[in-house]
């Protein structure tokens, strides 16, 4: 079935043509071929930060369900390692044990989750009679990464007399994520390269005052974002559709400047035409944030058509630090592949 109009229109009060008939494969009369479909798909990398943590790419020629599946998998089903079990030896800080544990759990950890397996059993913790475990389990190099946090706040003997700021007067008044030390277990020392560490060193974990201390061993496990947001490998993974701004009628003079101001910076340029008049032209529709503010001005609203291309997904993936964004996308595709394989197996078992 040929696409009716591959655009959705941004009207003043509503979005038109949002229903995606293209993804409705059942009603299609044409026989569907994978090769043909895949041929249409294009992936263009638009931008990648030098550390590879942020990635922008365009996914063109697929329907929303496919793009959305990729987004959903990135958010919830690509595994990462996160602190799951904390063996708190000492916590005399003001912050409560549970709250501290929650904070520690949310810290992003730089360790390749692909080198680990999902934990098979529930982690040892509180036993059946509700009593906390007596001793910390050793941890399995296949499943765990262990970090240790051991901080004690003391008075700073070398502090200047007139100092008032806690960071000058005390040592370790603020506990940052840099305080964690990695404790290798088994052959992790040699196997895990680069060594596991915190992604950021400047995350404030807790504040201490002289005499207070925190001593904890944190066991990380592999998990999914579906289970808890701390396992999500991305800060966010999202897409938006490519905006299309169509000027139906020439906009000149003063109106052109107003037109330019109604869009985000750099979207509209003003050219001088042969008559010496200033004319608004679309320079880079990509940059538009789709505020639709141009529609306020009645005289301009009739001269422009705002729409977005439905099969052009501008993806943005921001990794939380364990893997590079490009790797995450690949991992997500692998998960997706695995899922389809599972589905095929299930469907075929039903058919058979």
């Amino acid at each position: 079935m040929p696409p009716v109009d591959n655009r959705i229109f941004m009207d003043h009060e509503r979005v038109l043509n949002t229903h995606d008939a293209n993804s409705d494969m059942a009603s299609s009369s044409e026989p569907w071929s994978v090769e043909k479909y895949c041929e249409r798909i294009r992936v263009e990398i638009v931008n990648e930060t030098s550390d590879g943590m942020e990635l922008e790419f365009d996914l063109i020629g697929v329907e929303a369900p496919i793009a959305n599946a990729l987004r959903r998998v990135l958010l919830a089903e690509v595994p990462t390692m996160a602190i799951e079990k904390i063996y708190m030896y000492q916590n005399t800080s003001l912050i409560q044990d549970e709250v501290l544990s929650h904070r520690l759990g949310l810290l992003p950890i730089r360790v390749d989750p692909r080198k680990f397996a999902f934990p098979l059993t529930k982690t040892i913790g509180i036993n059946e009679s509700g009593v906390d475990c007596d001793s910390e389990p050793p941890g399995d190099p296949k499943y765990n990464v262990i970090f240790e946090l051991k901080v004690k706040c003391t008075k700073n003997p070398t502090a200047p007399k007139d100092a008032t700021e806690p960071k000058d007067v005390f040592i370790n008044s603020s506990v940052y994520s840099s305080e964690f030390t990695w404790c290798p277990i088994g052959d992790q020392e040699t196997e895990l390269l680069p060594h596991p560490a915190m992604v950021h060193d400047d995350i404030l974990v807790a504040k201490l005052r002289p005499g207070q201390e925190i001593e904890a061993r944190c066991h990380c496990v592999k998990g999914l974002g579906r289970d808890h947001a701390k396992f999500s490998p991305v800060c966010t993974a999202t897409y938006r559709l490519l905006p299309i701004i169509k000027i139906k009628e020439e906009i000149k003079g003063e109106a052109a400047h107003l037109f330019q101001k109604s869009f985000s910076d750099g979207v509209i340029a003003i050219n001088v035409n042969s008559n010496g008049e200033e004319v608004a032209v679309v320079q880079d529709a990509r940059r538009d944030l789709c505020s639709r503010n141009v529609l306020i001005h009645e005289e301009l609203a009739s001269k422009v058509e705002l729409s977005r291309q439905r099969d052009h997904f501008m993806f943005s993936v921001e990794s939380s630090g364990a893997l590079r964004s490009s790797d995450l996308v690949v991992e997500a595709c692998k998960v997706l592949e695995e899922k389809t394989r599972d589905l095929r197996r299930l469907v075929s078992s039903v058919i058979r």
Partner: protein
Amino acid sequence: MKEEEPSIDSIDEETVDLRAPVKTLADKWLLVKAFLRVRGLVKQHIASFDYFVKIEIRKILKANERIISDANPSFYLKYLDIRVGTPSSEEGFNQLNEKITPHECRLRDMTYSAPIVVDIEYTRGNQRVLRHNLTIGRMPIMLRSSKCVLKDQPPAQMAKLQECPHDPGGYFIVRGSEKVILIHEQLSKNRIMISRNHKKELTCEVLSSTQERKSKTYIISKKRRYYLRHNQLSDDVPVGIVLKAMGFENDHDIVSAVGIEERFVAGMAPSVEECERSQVVTQKQAVEYIGSKVRTTRTWGSSSKPKEHEARDFLSNTMIAHVPAVDGNMKLKAVYIGLMIRRLMQAEMGESESDDRDFYGNKRLELAGSLLALLFEDLFKRFNSELKKIADKTVIKPLAAAFDIVKHMRQDLITNGLTNALATGNWNIKRFRIDRQGVTQVLSRLSYISALGMMTRINSTFEKTRKVSGPRSLQPSQWGMLCPSDTPEGESCGLVKNLALMSHITTDADEQPIVSLLFKSGVEDLMLLPWTQIHNEDQHMVFLNGLIIGLTKDPMRIVRIVRAVRRTGFVNEFVSVSTNAAQRSVFIASDGGRLCRPYIIVEDGRSAVQDKHIQELHQGIRTFDDFIHDGLIEYLDVNEMNDAAIAVYDREIGAETTHVEIEPFTLLGVCAGLIPYPHHNQSPRNTYQCAMGKQAMGTIAYNQRNRIDSLMYLLVYPQRPLVKTKTIELCNFEKLPAGQNAIIAVMSYSGYDIEDALVLNKAALDRGYGRCLVYKHSKGTAKKYPNQTYDKVMGPSLDPTTRKPIYKHAVLDLDGIVCAGARLEHKQVLINKHVPVVSVDPVTQSATGPSGSAMTTRNVEFRESPISYKNPVPSYAERVLLTCNEDDSYLIKILQRQTRRPELGDKFSSRHGQKGVCGLIAAQEDVPFNDLGMCPDMIMNPHGFPSRMTVGKLMELLSGKAALFEGRFHYGTAFGGDQVETVKDELARHGFNYLGKDMLTSGITGQSLSAYIYFGPIYYQKLKHMVLDKMHARARGPRAVLTRQPTEGRAREGGLRLGEMERDCLIAYGASMLLMERLMVSSDAFKVDVCSTCGLIGYSGWCQRCRSSQTMATITIPYACKLLFQELQSMNIVPQLRLAKYTDGK
């Protein structure tokens, strides 16, 4: 209020008319800040208590300064001075801890009190003795009052004392709990009121109140004759006779006391005639007449006086008691009665309306100080009469040592009287027959705002059951004094009110300077004027606190002078002066309990406060008090406000304007002040928010982690609101916030959001949104008993096989108290206390000495009496406090903590009276997202808007969204704040839709939503109602002892009742077996042996009545039914059961 009002935060230059002489002052709200810095939010409580402790207590002493003995005329005791010392505590016998802090009292369940010390002079034998600093009792001290250790302490010092610098004070700590004496509203005393009684007749009444007496005097009219009615008169007495009895026999005087105008003379004629008819002509006759009517209700006081004395006593002391009869001269009283008759006549002739009882000028607010003064005086009188009794008994006895009264002064009468009254809230004052319940309440510490709200609460003495709307409805005179929004819903709606931000309640001011000022400024003494002058047309009466001071011919001169003198600061700034043209009177008030409020003075169409003053205020050169001293700002009470022309805004100032408002937002109270854009909301929504703001959890005080409260809810990550108000800044809500800024999408989602339900984003909850801490505490005391035994706290019991503590004692430390940090499970013991079986042993105590009782202590039996944890949801023991309390017993407090993440059914609310429960927790990937990839923390159904009309909420979202991108907190101050017009431009400037609507993509299908979604941050409060505290079900469980039926209520693990209506349904349906199962089998089925011949209940197959076992049958009946039969039997009623075989059929 109009939309185009220039914002108070950013003044728009163009709106100011250049021709106008006045320019709108931009930062007038700084005055509000300065006011609150000086007066504080609860200044009224503190000022009232200070007045009591410093001045009124001395007045009370003066009135009761002498104790004399009837037995020995040479004995006397005279109080010279009284003082309240600094807070201290008695630790054991005669050990004084001078360094007691309020927080220590809270933790140790003690009373924060200070000794009341007196200087006395008395006779011991034949000597005159002077004693100083004798303690007669202890006075609970109001926090932050002049006697409190927290008075004027800098924040650093407050932190040392473990006290929150933002805590308002104004409450007491009694036995560890914080008690507030609520403000009580009542009709003002000593004022003439015309009102209609239950028969709709006009009456004139005066409630007189003096230190000694409270009495109510009425003037009524029957058949155009006027009578005086009083509780102590058995019958109404004609006014003519009353006036004659006062010594004014001349009919002309009597008539001219009412008026010299024709209509008043005519009106008095029947009353004068009635005197004649009762043959009362002379004073003597009149006094005899009254003497025959006076009720003698003397209970104690032995001598019965002759009737004439009773009558004279009644006239001079009881009737209109507040009007003095100096040296027996009753002219003032006579004039007063004449005036009462005149007012009644005027009302009857339709010249004036009856007085409005709901008008705030006729109301007085009673505060902690005056209530305590009443109580203290009562106790002090009891204390003195007790001393007198002892003196009477002992002075006559010949003793070796001379009688020393000091040895008989017992402190506990006053101490216990005060603390008990504060602890229970029962105010019993026998003298005035006052018996009020619920005067004090426990300070609600759910949130900082709830504590503040409680301090400004006003209770009306009006009954809640009466169905009259008058006292409940909003009174126009409430403007600026009481918050129009903050009142509860339901039965006490409109009766419980709250003070507005800037209102102040006066305390009594000295009358003497005002009296002399009045006389100096041309008021003529009433005593010197002839009767005919009193109601002369060009004479105006001058009243001071309801008393006639004198007459003047130029009332405006008096008003001008009093105002001028007040503005210069020579008389108290709270003195008010107002006029009444119809009554030709000038009223001056200096009494306590009036509501008043500061206003900027306007002179010649020009606001007295100018830019330079504000500048000086800003620089800190000026304080609020300077504005008052310089005559730029003055306090107006409700009565004086009626004489003033007050402009709300500077630009409204006209030629006749006398004052201008400081800031209009101050007409709201603290609770309503938290609402952004309240002037755009439907008014009941603001009222709902006022109630809900008090249930929001967040932070309580800076010392919250040091407190051990019985219940405390805290938010793990509280935030300041993005859209704030000036009130929020002024009351420090930003520093102790209660809520979080949530990103809201206003859209329909999943269907689990109908009826105000909210959809929460699971990832937001994972990251800590709405996470809260719940603190509870358990308490145990280890006492010592009179028989030398004491409670013991024992270590854990060990399991004999494993040598480990048994489950119940698993969390106990070796000392028998739970260890800090332990996880507490259901039914585990927190304090393993053991109590001696025999604790009272009078025989040992009296018969043997301490050595003998020590013998018995050795083999005392102990019984377990543990304090255990009862909650199926585990908690952690955060802290254990081991201390001793005032009774010298050990006190153990254990603070327990739970951390909770929001779950289905938890209640949330925005600041616009829009509450909702969580209906669904959606996964992040399922939730819609905008072009930036942001997904909402909460999804709210748009159906919440049309019927509620909370436009303020829409505006909050818009301003909040702009605040995010501008990097500046926005204001939603009432009648001001950031305007939508500017906010929408800010949004557009940052590339967002100017309407605040974003284009969202469905997280489930991945396609764009066909509607634009209103999307942005709104400050949400998590309310204390959580599913975890409410959910309840029972399969089997405990039963009540008496009826053997399941217990009731969640706390007792009770069953869910199948009530009579449910029962009716089952009967109607015919489900008899289900009914049987519900009502008997699952409840209290009981097998009884019934004798089929006599029909009585037997036992073990034996009928005691028939002495046989042959006729017994066993049936099953509810135990409650069996109980009923036995109870009937005990009342000599014999219920007999007629038995038949089930199979016998019809």
